[in-house]
């Protein structure tokens, strides 16, 4: 392998590696634990939970701002 090619590859790998490491450290991307937690929540929450939650919020809004203002 020529020294020029080696230098070019090393430069690319270093820059790309630093970008990836920076992204990890600045939390712009998710970790495996984030993904596991997100999937756990998705698995646990049923469609009925969403419907009940919306009904609760609707009832609260009706009480707070009046039925004529609830959409």
């Amino acid at each position, binding site marked *: *392998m020529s020294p020029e090619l*080696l230098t070019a*590859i*090393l430069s690319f*790998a*270093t820059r*790309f*590696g630093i970008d*990836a*490491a920076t*992204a*990890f450290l600045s939390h712009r*991307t*998710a*970790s*495996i*634990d*984030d*993904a*596991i937690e*997100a*999937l*756990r*929540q*998705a*698995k646990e*929450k*049923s*469609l009925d939970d*969403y*419907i009940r*939650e*919306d*009904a609760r919020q*609707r009832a609260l809004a009706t009480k707070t701002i009046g039925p004529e203002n609830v959409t």
Partner: protein
Amino acid sequence: MKIETSKHDRIVFFAVLLTATLVSCQGLYTGTVTLTQVVDSATREYAHAYNSGLVPAETASKVAVAYEAYRKAAGVARDALVAYKQTGAGDTSNAVQTAKQAASQFIDLIVPFLTTEKASQVKTQLSKANVP
């Protein structure tokens, strides 16, 4: 033909390998989180439409079945990620891909009950949840 490798070559090889692993994992995990957020947001809006009496009973049944399929797929994907975290082995990509397909089927059913703006937003986000 014999290929001569130096210490530098091996360092470059491992640097490239490490970078590729790091980047592919980032895509999978970030895509997974985005996927669950998109489904969560769309489901909230669907629940609102359901409680407003806008969803026919037959459609509601189909939506419920599709959502259960998504939940089941999410559970399988979670187990695959947990196993991968513990052992460093296993196929996580296929499990997450199955969850994405289940999510897409669910979203397709509820899109008519979302606002135009939300439907467009959900489709864009779902395509961005680029699970490798």
